[in-house]
């Protein structure tokens, strides 16, 4: 059994998992002139939560379920070499979730950014909890599910950390990039907290669905912005 504080550790923006260097598409949106102030940030965060956030929550929850099953099977195998559970399906499910995210991420730059953050999160997970050393190259939502499982967290908590992370990252970037009032920015995050919880509950309820039925919401401007951003000569954020 795990307490709420473990979730706070995982969802803390100061967790050394590489998040601070990514703006979640905000730097590109600011540069294009579409985002200048708190009102613009509010719209950006709502849009991001409804698309990237919904997908992240769904895949983090699904990966958490699969990773928990794999961990339980490994523990059984350690205790009893004849353990009957075939966990190959669950191991394959983690690979399939990764492929599902590839299919939902047309922009190569966003795919790279997701894998870079997944790799950093798994590094933190290995150092902090007992994450399988073989898990190194995963999309961020899948990595989040794997690390949450290692931390003993249930799928709904993996999902809420994922949903919240998709808005807290760009919110923090907006404070640094635009000098927005940090109280105003955190008010926006507080307003979105209920929606994060709702998305997480939905994600947990559907964590066993076939991958083709998991959310596939698209944010074309984030995709296009990421491609433009990746080709800038000078940028402050990695994505």
């Amino acid at each position: 059994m795990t307490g709420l504080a473990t979730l706070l550790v995982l969802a803390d923006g100061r967790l050394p998992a590489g998040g601070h260097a990514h703006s979640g598409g905000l730097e590109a949106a600011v540069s294009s002139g579409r985002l200048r102030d708190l009102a613009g940030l509010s719209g950006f965060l709502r849009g991001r939560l409804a698309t990237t956030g919904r997908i992240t929550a769904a895949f983090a929850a699904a990966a958490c379920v699969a990773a928990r099953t794999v961990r339980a099977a490994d523990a059984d195998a350690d205790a009893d070499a004849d353990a009957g559970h075939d966990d190959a399906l669950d191991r394959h499910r983690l690979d399939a979730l990764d492929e599902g995210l590839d299919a939902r991420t047309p922009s190569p730059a966003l795919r790279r950014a997701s894998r870079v953050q997944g790799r950093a999160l798994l590094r933190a997970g290995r150092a902090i909890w007992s994450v399988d050393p073989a898990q190194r190259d995963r999309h961020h939502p899948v990595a989040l599910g794997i690390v949450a499982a290692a931390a003993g967290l249930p799928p709904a908590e993996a999902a809420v950390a994922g949903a919240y992370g998709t808005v807290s990252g760009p919110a923090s970037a907006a404070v640094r990039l635009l000098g927005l009032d940090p109280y105003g920015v955190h008010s926006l995050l507080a307003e979105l907290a209920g929606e994060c919880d709702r998305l997480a509950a939905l994600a947990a309820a559907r964590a066993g669905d076939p991958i083709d039925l998991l959310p596939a919401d698209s944010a074309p401007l984030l995709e296009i912005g990421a491609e433009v951003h990746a080709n800038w000569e000078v940028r402050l954020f990695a994505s």
Partner: protein
Amino acid sequence: MRPDPQVQNGTGSHDHGTGPHEHAVDEVPHTHPDPGVDPHAPLTSPVPGTTRPVRVGIGGPVGSGKTALVAALCRALGDELRLAVVTNDIYTTEDADFLLRNGVLPADRIRAVETGCCPHTAIRDDISANLDAVEDLEVSLGPLDLVLVESGGDNLTATFSRGLVDHQIFVVDVAGGDKVPRKGGPGVTSADLLVINKTDLAPLVGADLSVMARDSAARRGDLPTVFLSLVDDPVAGMVADWVRGLLPARTDRRGGPAKLVP
């Protein structure tokens, strides 16, 4: 005026307690924080069967000459060591481009890390992107002797995490004012080597090097300080010698026996 000798070393003592500890005869004198105890974690490398390279961080305020020092070290050490560089400039590739333009290191030996407006976060609070960059270099290039990690320009409190580097150099310059060593801060007080750069500018900006030497010694105790002018010494000989002294004695480096001569 320039202090003489250039290396200010407090007492110059070199007490390591009872543990065996060999030093090359030409090694720059140094001290260890906890005599008799090796403060470093065992070296592990992502390249199987090898030890990981020594990592040296180079930090300091904006414009103090960090990138120029890295370029000088590449010129001095590039032919004798298997060397790679990670840069953390806030503008993504500015420093990496400088090193490439100056031709001091091939492109495949340089990685640039984005820091999201927070250079000190990337070298201290969340070192994951830098660790990834170091490991990428090792995997793509094979075993390395030395990785230099250059911080983006920051402030006097920005130091490297010990989880990222084994040793760190802090670079300040005389044009920043001769009061900088007296101000202290973790960079000046705790870096393994303090470099006071651009001494050739001292007469032009009215900086008193003897004041800087005295204040550095007061702030740093036994830790060494080097006065440097890359105009007079384009390969940063004193600093390069100090870096050589950090490396384990080996004879299998590129091109056979290491050339440990200034």
